[in-house]
């Protein structure tokens, strides 16, 4: 079980690194899909079946496709002549390393107090999740529905052609 975790974690991290480091933007989008799939596998390993499959549906099925569409619409697959990294990449790398140092330090400092093993795996059915969504979490659910509608209309208006907007 533990071996599977390290294998999936290595796959996820390799996918994330490739998504950030590769020169061709389309390859980055494909590597991002690998990272998303690895995360879905990690969710499944943590007995969160619903979140794992939602991750596959939403991220691999929708977000990755959106990213590929955006790359193709903006002709972003052409590698720019003056490099893929921004002018102040060294500062960005330093900030990211500092953030990881702080997070890793915090985790390692508190590792003794963290639970080493989990309690018995809970049986979470979709029925339970649905019941929770319409009883205890009904207000967040409504807010998310409103947010998704607003985001969809906003994205369409933002990406619409100028000429069509003037009509």
């Amino acid at each position: 079980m533990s071996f599977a975790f390290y294998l999936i974690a290595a796959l996820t991290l390799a996918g994330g690194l490739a998504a950030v480091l590769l020169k061709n933007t389309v390859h980055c989008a494909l590597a991002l899909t690998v990272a998303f799939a690895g995360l879905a596998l990690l969710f499944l390993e943590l007995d969160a079946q619903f979140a794992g499959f939602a991750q596959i549906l939403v991220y691999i099925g929708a977000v990755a496709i959106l990213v590929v569409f955006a790359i193709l619409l903006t002709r972003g697959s052409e590698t720019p002549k003056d490099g893929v990294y921004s002018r102040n990449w060294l500062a960005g790398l330093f900030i990211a390393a500092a953030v990881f140092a702080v997070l890793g330090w915090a985790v390692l400092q508190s590792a003794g107090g963290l639970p080493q093993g989990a309690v018995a795996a809970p049986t979470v059915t979709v029925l339970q999740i649905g019941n929770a969504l319409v009883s205890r979490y009904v207000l967040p659910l409504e807010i998310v529905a409103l947010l998704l509608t607003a985001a969809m209309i906003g994205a369409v208006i933002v990406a619409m052609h100028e000429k069509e907007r003037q009509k």
Partner: protein
Amino acid sequence: MTPLAHYLLVAALLFSIGLAGALTRRNAILVLIGIELMLNAANLNLIAFWRYGPHPEALTGMMFAIFSIAVAAAEAAVGLGLVIQIHRHAHTTDLDAMNRMKG
């Protein structure tokens, strides 16, 4: 079973990778990819704490993660729509070349 700290370390590493990507890449779409990786690392933390917490049957962490996935999807749609519109306007997605907000 794998200790919780290992999941947290993987999430921290993924978050830092995403942050490095968001801060160092030129292309606006790659910056969005970095932000998505950071959001996913946070989701991994939520699910891991839910699973290792004393009451996983309360579903709290899992609900957090599900709502977070929904919000991230909305964020990706609006962000990529903005990138497409900026490309149409300025004919570039290079963030170093976009140095004014006036059209």
